[in-house]
Each structure stands twice: as structure tokens, then as C-alpha cells.
């Protein structure tokens, strides 16, 4: 009998501000954290949450991960005497590129001042595992610990890894999440050259006028625990991750399979893992990047996976509010998903106005949609994350 994996704490730092509650409050209100075509965490000051030394020993992506995971761990009651042994607590943090800010800065130092001036801290800061290692160090987490790399699916994959670890019995708890701070000169220029970034600086997933994604930065973290043990210790159960499905498109380095074949299989796998029929899902938290390709392919995938039920399910994209957080997206979106389910609302796809031929789902324009439970069942959602390279990860969540 599979162990059920509960969420006992959530944390986030996003363009909407610091904190998971801030994220859901403002998304529900239809606000946007995008300014001048970018989703920066402009209200985030690392030294408000980290000592100067800690902040110095961390690239921005790690700083964001430390702050988000601190919030999640506090929420789960892991401050002071830990409810789960350190050796039984894992830590998996996904990222797209890790410490790219450090890479770019130190490369300039190398070019302009020579190898002798490159910082001894360069490698520890830029390595993509720095977030998971640092979170483990700061919180004394001694179970399995590693980073996950799968572009825009990394955050979701990290959560999936944590779920499987607990289900298998390799861990009793896991801090799982994603972090990204790639709004840097090179990364921005490079994404721009791919015609993947919005030229208008507007994130409008599923809208006919969408023209690319808006870059965002931030981090999301969840504390996952064996549900039974969590209940026994009196933890607050925020929700349960009931299913996880992951596939590869094997199609193209950047474009998704046009009919979403890989995505459909991932949705099917997540539902099967959860033991649910498509009709049991109340809401889809879409990948919804605002690119012409993803949104069309994803819409088709949802239609195919959900069949007749597709037109009944509200489909929202958090990226409409905060932009695309790349490796952090899957984790931030999982945090937002469980909080939205707890509030019984499908938040809006901010700015959706124009219908595109063939994209016929309910994208929840303007204001959030109340979700009604059927016969007292928990509210259920899936959260999609599809990464460049054809990496698909879908989580199935529920909350009461």
C-alpha cells in the first residue's frame, strides 16, 4: 500500500513578493508582479533573511531557495526540535541553470582582471546543487540531498523525487522545491535570440496575442512528509500530493510536441498514479508560458487527456501573474496550487482577453472561480510543467 505524501509547509519568494500567502493573495486578486517586461523579486532583500556571511556564500538562486525553504520549514514546525530525524529528512531543489549570475560575474573578472582574481567562492556559488546543499546545511538535513536539472520542469521533478523517496521509505520528510535567478545579461540576451521571450513584455497565456514568455525569478519550497506520521505528530496537513507523472517528448530541443503527446502521457501517468479518473479533477494549474507553441500544444493535451470533461475544468496559469520562473516554476506553482485548493478558488489567468481559434478551454479570465467540492471530496488539481528539451512533469494535488 503506497504511503500518502502530505504537504506540511510551503514557502515562496516570487515577483509578487515574499511569502506563500502573499503569492496566493495577490494571484487570487488578479495582480501582476511583472514590471518592465520582467518578473523580478524586487521586494526581496537577502540580508533581511540571511546573515551577511550566508548571503555572501550564496548566488541569488540559493538565497531565494534558503528563504523559501525557511518559510516552509517554519510552517511545518521544523524550527527548534525537529519532528523528523535529520537523517530521515531529504532535500531536493531543482533549478534550470543554477548560479548563472556568479558565472557571468566571474567570467568578466577572468576576462578583465585575470585568473588570479577569480573568486575562490565562484564554484561553490555557481554550482547548480548549491541550493540543495545550502538548504541542507542551514537546516541540518542529512537524508538524500541533490539538485534536479530539467529546465522549466525542474521544480516539479524535484517534488516528484521527494514524493517517491517518501513513498519508497528512503525518507520520512523532504524539503522539495525549485529556485531560479537567471535574469542576467547573458541569459536574457540568449532567450531573446531564441524568439522565446515576449517582445511586448506581456505575459498573457492562452491569449491570441501572446508572443512569448516573460522571464521571472524566485523560489518555491514544500515540506513533504509521510501523511500518517504527520497526522500522528499533529502537523497541519495543507494538502496531499496524490500523483506524479513524468515523460519525455523526444521531439525537439525547444519546441514541444505540437499535439502534446508527451504532455498527455504525463497527465495520464499522474492521474493513474493518483488512482483518479480525469473527471475527478476540479482545476488545472497550467504550464501556460504565453508562448505561441506551448499554450497551443498544452491546450490540446488537456483536451485530449480530459476528453469531454475538458471544457468543464477551469485552466489557469500563474505565469500570467509572475512570468516564467524557469526551474522554480514547477515548485512555486505547486505551492500556489495547494493554497488555491485550500481556499476553494481557481485564480485567474491574468490579462486573458482574446480567444484564439482552437484554444477553447475555460482559461479563467479576470477573476478567480469558486471551486465546488462534490460530495465532500477534497478539491483536486493537476499542475503541469513542461521544460525545454521535452521534459514533462505533472503533479496531482488535493486539499480540503
Amino acid at each position, binding site marked *: 500500500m503506497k504511503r500518502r505524501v502530505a504537504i506540511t509547509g510551503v514557502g515562496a519568494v516570487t515577483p509578487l513578493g515574499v511569502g506563500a500567502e502573499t503569492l496566493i493573495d495577490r494571484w487570487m486578486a488578479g495582480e501582476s508582479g511583472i514590471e518592465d517586461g520582467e518578473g523580478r523579486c524586487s521586494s526581496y532583500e537577502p540580508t533581511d533573511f540571511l*546573515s*551577511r*556571511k*550566508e548571503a*555572501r*556564500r550564496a548566488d541569488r538562486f540559493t538565497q531565494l531557495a534558503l528563504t523559501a525553504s525557511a518559510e516552509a520549514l517554519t510552517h511545518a514546525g521544523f524550527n527548534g526540535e525537529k519532528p523528523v530525524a535529520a537523517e530521515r529528512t531529504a532535500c531536493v531543489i531543482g533549478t534550470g541553470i543554477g548560479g548563472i549570475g556568479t558565472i557571468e560575474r566571474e567570467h568578466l573578472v577572468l576576462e578583465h582582471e585575470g585568473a*588570479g*582574481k577569480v*573568486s*575562490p*567562492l565562484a564554484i*561553490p556559488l555557481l554550482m547548480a546543487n548549491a541550493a540543495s546543499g545550502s538548504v541542507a546545511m542551514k537546516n541540518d538535513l542529512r537524508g538524500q540531498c541533490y539538485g534536479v536539472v530539467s529546465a522549466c520542469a525542474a521544480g516539479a521533478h524535484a517534488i516528484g523525487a521527494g514524493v517517491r523517496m517518501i513513498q519508497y521509505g528512503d525518507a520520512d520528510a523532504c524539503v522539495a522545491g525549485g529556485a531560479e535567478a537567471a535574469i542576467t545579461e547573458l541569459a536574457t540576451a540568449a532567450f531573446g535570440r531564441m524568439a522565446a521571450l515576449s517582445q511586448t513584455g506581456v505575459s498573457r497565456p492562452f491569449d491570441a496575442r501572446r508572443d512569448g514568455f516573460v522571464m521571472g525569478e524566485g523560489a518555491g519550497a514544500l515540506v513533504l512528509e509521510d501523511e500518517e506520521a504527520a497526522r500522528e505528530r499533529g502537523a497541519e496537513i495543507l494538502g496531499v500530493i496524490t500523483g506524479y507523472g513524468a515523460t519525455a517528448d523526444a521531439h525537439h530541443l525547444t519546441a514541444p510536441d505540437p499535439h502534446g503527446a508527451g504532455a498527455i502521457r504525463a497527465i495520464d501517468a499522474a492521474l493513474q498514479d493518483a488512482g483518479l479518473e480525469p473527471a475527478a479533477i476540479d482545476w488545472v494549474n497550467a504550464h501556460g508560458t504565453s508562448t505561441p507553441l506551448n499554450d497551443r500544444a498544452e491546450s490540446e493535451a488537456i483536451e485530449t487527456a480530459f476528453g469531454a470533461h475538458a471544457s468543464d475544468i477551469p485552466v489557469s496559469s500563474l505565469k500570467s501573474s509572475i512570468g516564467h520562473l524557469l526551474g522554480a516554476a514547477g515548485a512555486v506553482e505547486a505551492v500556489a496550487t495547494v493554497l488555491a485548493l485550500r481556499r476553494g478558488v481557481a485564480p485567474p489567468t491574468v490579462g486573458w482577453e482574446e480567444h484564439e481559434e482552437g484554444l477553447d478551454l475555460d482559461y479563467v479570465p479576470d477573476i478567480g472561480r469558486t471551486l465546488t467540492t462534490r460530495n465532500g471530496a477534497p478539491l483536486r488539481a493537476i499542475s503541469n510543467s513542461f521544460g525545454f528539451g521535452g521534459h514533462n512533469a505533472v503533479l496531482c494535488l488535493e486539499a480540503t
Partner: protein
Amino acid sequence: MPDTITRDQIEARMSEALVEFGADAEQIQPDAKFEALDVDSLDLVELAQIVEEEYGVQMTGEDMKTLTTVGSAVDFVEKRLS
């Protein structure tokens, strides 16, 4: 490059660096132990880089092992400058 670098100057520069690494400025005394200041091996590597760059004095890994206090590090640099 100044003609003579005084011990005071070395001490000041070192304190500045240690504070940047996160040490509490008030606790930086000649007999203060690096460990007590939360200055670790990575910080010492950075300190060595500064010392080499600004004083032309090399501090190897072996050297760093013997330097456990602020004063011993200042002594080290002063000695090699004279």
C-alpha cells in the same frame, strides 16, 4: 605601491576583509581566533588572494593551516614584506 606598508595598515586591510567575510568588526582583535570569528578555510583562501594581490605576499595552503588568529596572519604578512 607605497614605499613602506605599516603593520597598522596591514591590520586595517585585514579587518576590512574579515568584516566583508561576515566577521563582527567589534570582535576583531589581534588575539581573536579565526574560528571564533566564523572565518573558515574558504575565507582564508579569499584572504590569501587579497594578500597576494595587494602585498605580493604568497600564502599557501600549508601556511594557512598555521594561522589561527588575526595577529598571526598580520605577523605573517609583515614578516614577508620586510
